[in-house]
């Protein structure tokens, strides 16, 4: 990937990082179109275009990569730190118009929002720096009461 450095986050004690959970869950025939569309956008941005702001769906402090416009409700939550640094999270199937009413999405939505806010705070305070498409500094986060 010569345009974007993709990060994901690894919850302590889990076998897979969050984007690996997304791949494992959605790379099945039932979600084929949605999954391939999202992952193709991830790859194309990473190799060709960079993370243009207009490619993302804004989800409060975080972002999400969109499912196909006319069908499918799969979301991949992420945090666009800069045009060349993107943190990929896990995804979900959105079952209601509002994410707050979608049980599958709510956790991932809130988790990525909390992470995005902490990243922004650390960048502002100087605990995190962006250099040469990399994040440098403290990359350990404590989110909520359960996750560190």
């Amino acid at each position, binding site marked *: *990937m010569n345009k974007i450095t*993709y990060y*994901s986050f690894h919850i302590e004690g889990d076998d*897979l*990082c969050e*984007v*690996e959970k997304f*791949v*494992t869950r959605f*790379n099945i025939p039932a979600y084929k179109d949605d999954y*391939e*569309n999202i*992952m*193709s*956008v*991830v*790859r*194309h*941005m*990473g190799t*060709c*275009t960079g993370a*243009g702001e*207009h*490619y*993302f*769906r804004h989800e409060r402090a975080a972002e999400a990569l*969109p*499912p*196909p*416009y*006319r069908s499918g409700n799969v979301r991949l939550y992420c945090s666009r730190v800069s045009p060349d640094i993107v943190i990929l999270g896990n995804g979900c199937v959105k079952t209601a118009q509002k994410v707050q009413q979608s049980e599958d999405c709510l956790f991932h939505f809130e988790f990525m929002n909390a992470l995005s806010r902490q990243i922004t705070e650390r960048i502002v305070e100087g605990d995190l720096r962006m250099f040469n498409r990399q994040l440098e500094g403290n990359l350990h986060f404590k989110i909520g009461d359960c996750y560190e």
Partner: protein
Amino acid sequence: MSKIFEDALNALPAHAMERAAMSLEVADRIHAILEKKGMSHRDLAQALGKSESEISKWMRGTHNFTFDTIAKINMALDAKLIYVPKARSVKQGDGRLAKSDATVIPIKPLKSATGLSDTSQQWSLYREVGNRAATVPLTLNRN
């Protein structure tokens, strides 16, 4: 890079990649034209008679554009979203040759045509191909 993630990206079918690339390129093109013309998504939406939220969905790069949609956007933006190269261009002429019309044909140095008895009166233009003399259908008369 995570092996699972890398394998997943490498396993994507070519047509899915092409589809994503094309849709993002169209979204980029609209974005660039809007910026150049100082137009907002709302302006484009109004010109197309659509809601702003629908235009924003197009900008996310996953909308399946139809020729109908593209034609309407072309009209609304007064610009071409997609250029299709023509197979060949036909230039309108005015019946006169210009320098730009010249076609260079590699011709060996002129020699008198073989088999012509009166070379003082007629000259043939020909070129040699291997050992054979190939004439072109042109005879020059010396004045």
